[in-house]
């Protein structure tokens, strides 16, 4: 390790965000450039722990101390090799991961943790700039054919791994563009989409084939894939949103977040979005129900669409400002998080349960009725706290319930677990021979970093299944 006393001398520093007043006028990423010497200094804050909790905190088990040190020493090329050893797509996680690694960082016990995520992002961005990233096609082809259903982070990670192991991989995507949630769920101001393109270019060169507009179970019978391919990976995400079954839910102007956010991403790509069915926040009074990341994405998108007024409700009580004693280090801390979108405006409120919507004569929602509730698990309504708000657009960002079941899953007849996810054994294999599952489809709604981790592990299991041995990590 380079600098033994780095953490004692240097304080945590992140690149500045562009001012909210400026950034809500465009859809570009919000961070300003960060000079190399600064990021290297940040790398030197890593203490090279005897027991680095960060890389256990990371679902991908990124070997964080090693590349922190390499960045400190300016050894970018080796840093990216280390980074890629465990993570296929650091350019995604470096932008949109909530960074459980930083929550587990040992320095975080009594100081602000190392800026691990920023370092990760810098390594991979620089690696692309410097031309370190090139295709790594397999030396030997196995002749085995593998189908991956879904092109989100799990499917892509699996596809890349399998291709490198020498298999013929085809990725099926129901949408017109590759990327799944990365493409249509994540707003551009968090991650610009050209980042996906350059990675796809590498994967194509490594032999991965992509079929878009191919909705397995709808446009292509799932059983066809079973016949054509030696193995099949289900990585279609957990797209079944949690609904809010209250009176008035049917009113116009009440939408799932995943109806709202993809539209904006299409617009950003320059795709036409027909007025009919268009969901826009411009000039409207918006309520976002759900205090999580998706809610925050809706918030930032609404700001940029210039909503008149935005409120975000959360059912749970307001978390403490500091790490809760119930989630001591190195656990993921229960504490109030303020995303960049919150910095940009809007009102947040906690312990709010929506009890009904009322609408105008045209069937458009115009009022939301709610009540303050007590803490979980009972969420008891507090008498006398009923409230009513005027509202034009309600966005439901309350999480997801698992994979969509009609179509492919029905056709394959795979068993589901108690939560409605595809059940697999520890080798990612479902109840149907040759059919594997990974990512949200298997574990339910989760983080991108988990999706990549699942994709990699499933690929390893599939390679082992197909070849009897595997050298995939």
């Amino acid at each position, binding site marked *: 390790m380079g600098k*033994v*006393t780095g*953490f*004692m001398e240097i304080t945590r520093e992140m690149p500045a965000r562009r001012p909210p007043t400026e950034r809500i006028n465009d859809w570009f990423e919000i961070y300003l450039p960060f000079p190399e010497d600064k990021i290297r200094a940040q790398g030197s804050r890593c*203490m*090279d*722990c*005897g*027991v*680095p*909790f960060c*890389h*256990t*905190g990371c679902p991908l*088990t990124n*070997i964080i*101390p*090693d590349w922190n040190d390499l960045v400190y020493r300016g*050894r970018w090329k080796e840093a990216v*090799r*280390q980074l*890629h*050893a465990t993570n296929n797509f650091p350019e995604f996680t470096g932008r949109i991961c909530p960074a459980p690694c930083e929550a*587990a960082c*040992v*320095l975080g*016990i*009594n*100081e602000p943790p190392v800026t691990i995520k920023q370092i990760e992002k810098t390594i991979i961005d620089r690696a692309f700039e410097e031309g370190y990233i090139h295709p*790594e096609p*397999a030396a030997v082809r196995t002749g085995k054919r593998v189908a991956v259903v879904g092109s989100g982070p799990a499917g892509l990670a699996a596809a890349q791994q399998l291709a*490198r*192991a020498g298999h013929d991989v085809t990725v099926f995507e129901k949408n017109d563009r590759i990327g799944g949630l990365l493409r249509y769920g994540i707003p551009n101001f968090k991650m610009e989409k050209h980042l996906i393109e350059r990675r796809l270019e590498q994967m194509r060169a490594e032999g991965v084939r992509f079929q878009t507009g191919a909705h397995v179970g709808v446009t292509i019978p799932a059983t066809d894939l079973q016949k054509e391919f030696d193995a099949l990976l289900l990585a279609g995400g957990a797209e079944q949103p949690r609904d809010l079954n209250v009176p008035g839910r049917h009113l116009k102007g009440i939408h799932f977040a995943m109806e709202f956010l993809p539209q904006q991403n299409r617009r950003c790509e320059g795709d036409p979005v027909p007025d009919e069915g268009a969901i826009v926040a411009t000039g409207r009074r918006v309520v976002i129900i759900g205090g999580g990341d998706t809610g925050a994405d809706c918030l930032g998108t609404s700001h940029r669409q210039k909503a008149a007024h935005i409120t975000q409700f959360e059912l749970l009580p307001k978390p403490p400002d500091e790490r809760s004693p119930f989630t*001591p*280090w*190195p*656990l993921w801390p229960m504490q109030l998080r303020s995303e960049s979108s919150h910095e940009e405006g809007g009102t947040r409120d906690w312990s709010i349960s929506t009890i009904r919507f009322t609408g105008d004569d045209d069937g458009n929602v115009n009022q939301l009725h709610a009540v303050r509730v007590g803490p979980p698990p009972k969420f008891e309504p507090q008498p006398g706290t009923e409230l009513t708000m005027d509202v034009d657009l309600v966005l439901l960002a309350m999480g997801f319930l698992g994979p969509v079941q009609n179509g492919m899953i029905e056709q394959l007849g795979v068993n589901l677990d108690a939560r409605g996810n595809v059940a697999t054994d520890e080798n990612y294999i479902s109840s149907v021979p040759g059919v594997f599952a990974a990512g949200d489809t298997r574990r339910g709604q989760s983080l991108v970093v988990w999706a990549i981790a699942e994709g990699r592990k499933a690929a390893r299991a599939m390679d082992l299944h197909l070849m009897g041995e595997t*050298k*995939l*990590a």
Partner: protein
Amino acid sequence: MSELRVRQGLPAPQGLYDPRLEHDACGIGFVANIKGHRSHDILVKGIQVLINLTHRGACGCDPETGDGAGVLIQIPHAFFARECARLGFTLPPAGEYGVGMTFLPVERHPRLLCEGIIERIVCEEGLTVLGWRDTPIDGSAIGRVARASQPYIQQILVGRAKAMTEEELERKLYIVRKRAEAEIAASDVPDKDFFYIPSLSARTIVYKGLLLAPQIANFYPELSDPEVVSALCLVHQRFSTNTFPTWQLAHPFRYIAHNGEINTLRGNVNWMHARQSVLASPLFGGEIKKLFPIIQAGGSDSANFDNALELLIMGGRSIEHAMAMLIPEAWSSNPHMNPEKRAFYEYHASLMEPWDGPAAIAFTDGRSIGATLDRNGLRPARYLVTEDDLIIMASETGVLPVKPENVKLKGRLQPGKMLLVDTSEGRIISDKELKRSLYRRSPYELWLRENQITLDQLPEPGREHGTDHETILSRQRAFGYTDEDLRLIVAPMAEKGEEPVGSMGTDTPLACLSDKPQPLFNYFKQLFAQVTNPPIDPIREEMVMSLISYIGTERNILDETPQHCHTLKLPHPILTNTHLEKLRRVSRGDFLATTLPMLFASEEGAKGLARALDQLCRRASLAIKSGYTLLILSDRGIDPDYAPIPSLLALAAVHNHLVREETRTQVALIIESGEPREVMHFALLIGYGASAVNPYLAIETLEDMVKRGLLTPAITFEKALLNFKKSINKGLLKTFSKMGISTLQSYRGAQVFEAIGLNRDLVEKYFTGTVSRVEGVGLEVLAQEAILKHRHAFFPVTDSDTELAVGGNYQYRERGEYHLFNPLTISKLQHAVAQQNPQTFKEYTDLIDHKNRQLCTLRGLLEIKKSQHPIPIGEVEPAKEIVKRFATGAMSFGSISKEAHETLAIAMNRIGGKSNTGEGGEDEARFKPDASGDLRRSAVKQVASARFGVTTNYLVNADELQIKMAQGAKPGEGGQLPGHKVDQEIARVRHSIPGVGLISPPPHHDIYSIEDLAQLIYDLKNANPRARVSVKLVAEVGVGTVAAGVSKAHADVVLISGDSGGTGASPLSSIKHAGVPWELGLAETQQVLVLNDLRGRIRVQTDGKLQTGRDVTIAALLGAEEFGFSTAPLISMGCIMMRKCHLNTCPVGIATQDPELRKKFHGKPEDVINFFFFIAEQVRGYMAQMGFHTFDEMVGRVDMLDARLAIDHWKAKGLDLSMILYNPPTPSRIARRRIQPQDHGLSQALDYRLIDHAREAIDNATPLEIKLPIRNVHRTVGAMLSGEIARKYGSAGLAHNTIRFQFSGSAGQSFGAFLVKGVTLELEGDANDYVGKGLSGGKLIVYPPRNSTFLPEENILIGNTVLYGATSGEAYFNGMAGERFAVRNSGATAVVEGLGDHGCEYMTKGLVVVLGKTGRNFAAGMSGGIAYVLDEKGDFAEKRCNTAAVDLEPLAADEDVQQLYALIADHVAATGSPRGKWILEKWTEMLPRFVRVFPHEYKRVLGVPRLSERLAATA
């Protein structure tokens, strides 16, 4: 060991007990009339010497049975003539017959068989049996146990053949004895183990037995017969670690009495065996084979040494010549040695390796008698010559009263020197004269010049291998390199030229339990010296160490020709590629090299490996037959088909094959391998017989790292290589020194390792003689491991896959090696104690216990049984009682912060457990409770080698005094606290100077042997009789026998530490590769203590990564009563295993002295208390399950443990823990836990009388002055008195000179130890070792008897290791001191008139004035304080002082001059020193000859520029 035939008396190997591991140490001595006048008086005096050395011996469970004693005298002809006449036969004149002492079976029938065999052999050898004589003995004079095992003792009188000279007769008698030994050993005579021939000679006779010294004259009544006369008498009193009755192992042997231990025995014996094939001598002709085996099986190290010595003497060398061959002086790094003498030693070094280890050996061939010390001088030997031609040599002075006016001179043996009395010439031959006559025997210098070759003389090779950057990564993978190897091992070595340092202990699985493919090296653990044998400081005492070795065909050691030194001299064992090519192409003299491949076909698996090994051995034999003398075993040329054979396996296979073939000494084995890269690898290769190693891949790696910019830019490849070699060489010296071995030559083939997890077949075939006690993997798994690495190398998937494996051995890494303390277990433990949540604690312990069971520790493979009669948990002893058995580990204030240290102390005091000071002393402010009622005092006060802060007041404020012999993380090593960690407060507590670095020496300089340990225990008991004394050992094979010795040395507690214990800083190779798990050490200890019936008087504690209630329960069942914890309590207080303790950057304020970081400490005593109660509650759960009401019931109940078979693990499935679970079949009255206190023998202490005298003076601080006689049996005089005073007055003591005792006589060891302020001891006479040990403000004055006639400054007055660890006080010595005067002095002021080697070593504070000669290596490691040395000869700087750490300069400042003058004046006033007077008289003339010794570090702290800096500034 298959060749081992257990000697009568020692039990057969059982469980973990192995009779090979017995140690002994002793008192030795001789008395002789220089003129050769025989008298009975010599014998009387000899026995008197023996009796006065009794305290150096020991007795076992039966206080009347000693460990053995004996005398060797000249054959009293008149006596035998008279006796034989009575028996009806006539003796020929003296010199024409031999007398044999024989031990025979007691039963008549087998005895007659033995006698018959002897008689037949005597006749066959052309001699005649004159008759037998029943040696009269008195069985009632000896102990019960001794009597039960007593052999039948007879003397045989053998007549010569006609016209035989005495020499020829002696040689014949030798043949007779060797033949009889071999024949009876091979026979099926019942009870043949009784058979033994103590001596059979025409000159000498040995009387010995399992006796205590005072018993010998009564047991052998003839020793009191006035006609039993001799001119010389060699005596020995044994202190053995065992209590088993062994008559044969008593000394003297035929030629020697030995105090010490041969560390390289395994190698020496092997090499001697290998040499037999070329042994020849015209003196024996064809009869030489009758002497085989030269080394008799089953003997002790001393017995084996005697065998080798005897061969050399009988082969025609003089006894002094033979001794100089076997135990040479340290010659190689002494530039001042006479070149002819160096040549003598160097010549003989090409004949044979030294028998290395601490030794004081007294020897005689019946005409000459003498003694020698090993190169380190680690055993005391004092002598005295009288005006009437008597010489008395003994381990101590004062063993025989001699009138002062009759004393001609008093001396001591110096390291590597020899004392010889030739009674036929009637004079003492000085070392100088004796060595001169040796080196002038032959033109050794010329022979060497003409025959010896160096690498430089060989022609440059045309071609050599370079670095192949293209393929290096895959080759690194094939040899199992990890990323950590590069980052944490190779890089630091290349950059700094030093072995990398780390901290905290190891918590990864044993190699045999790891899921990762391991290098074969990792299955071995380094052995190390503890108690019976001191480790060496290879840095500060470099002058005794040597890496030189000789390659070449060994020749007949009984001959002496120029060709004998036709060898290739290597300065160190690491060969660069150029060097190797030179050797490969060598064609000079006998040298001819061939390369044998160490590869096997990966496809063929284990069968392929076995075949390849067999083939390799066959090829080696063939190569020898074809005349090759250098065999290069090479694994160059691996490819996708061929994997490397583990280099150690290939080497050991060939080595042992050739040893068996007896051709081993005809070739040198050289390893050309990609595998070795760290110190342990090289140590193993050399330890199993390699002459040199070419680590080509490590070399390529260095170049590749330079090319890839992985090293600091300033480091070129050449520099990196130089540094790498330097690091490995330094590391090797360190590894040797841990075992107390000084030279590479004797380390080679010594096999000082223990294997863990290798199965019997593998060990017997390839690692013959190596200890491996839990079975384990065989060739099958070794092949699999090699193949896994090989595949990893040649078939990667992606770019990032071509990286090296992460490793994770030193730092936790996902996908790397498993660690017991990992993110999950650490956080669970912290959450459990912080939230006081037993459920979370259970989650924590489940994680560990479960993982353990799979693949981490030996205890994981044990299962705690359930009783058929469990009891309700409510009936089990409460947790608050159990926690009293818990202790925290010895972590010094200095290694951890004040906050952390005191939190632990408070926690342990609250629950009635014990915290430990560690070796950093303790602030006296902590001795009294705080206002809150909390006590920050540590119950256990550690006494470690540096004696930091060990004052009398410290000792009396302890409940337990713990002598740290070794530390789990780095057994056999010292330590270092860098200057930047020594702040004001630490310096105050440690009695040192802020900012000055502190060194802990590897050995305690007052413990070089078991009897020394007994002495320190006695010292500490005297200082504080209320504290129990504990001795901390580290588990390794043989620790049980050491523990038995510790019990016999009257310790109250023995602590067996596992290898996984932590450290604040230690070389990584030590953390990983030295010592064994506590399970093995504890089980062995329990078994050996029970077998010896020594368990009942000592408590057993264990520690080493104890983490859960299950761990504690298993330890208790294996025999522990108490338990130590360090890492887990630290983690409870917030430690997150940063492993940066050595860098002072602990981010949670525990292992740091940085004030900012210390603020981050948030640990609370409650956290620690919660941890201990959780553990205790879990233990209670297990106790209930087993049906134990009290903890005591559980101790040693090994029957409640089962071994699980790890059938599903590819490696662990071969393990067999039955030896750990062995339960010695002793009756129930033999205690299995401590049931009675030790008898410390304090009642005889002189101090009781002193205290009686001084009672009023102590109570009222009134002055007192008393005169008393003193003898050498009065040991540790003044310590108990001092303890009394310290208890009353604290460190302030009394006013100077309040209590004054004037003694006359010879004081015993530790005179004035721990003497406190206010007490003055004056001694007219002389004193033994350890005068003023731990001096704490008192005053010591020693001068020779007023009526003596010798010059005080030329005669030895006080022994070795004087003022060791003194913290304050004054001392005036009117005479010379021995070795290591003022070692680790940290505050005392002393004047002395001469001293031996290593004066003022490691001194950190204080003032020493030397008015006479100094030995070599003065001021080594001295970092503080000042010394003034009178350098009359002007050779001090050049020859005597080690200037690595000090500047030498004239006295300049007035105050310095005045101070020196005043001190000498005080000295004269106190002692009446004539020399002092003389110096003061000639003050202006003498002053310029004084040199001021000023440590660099001290100067730096004082802001005084160094001389060189001043010169630079003025230039």
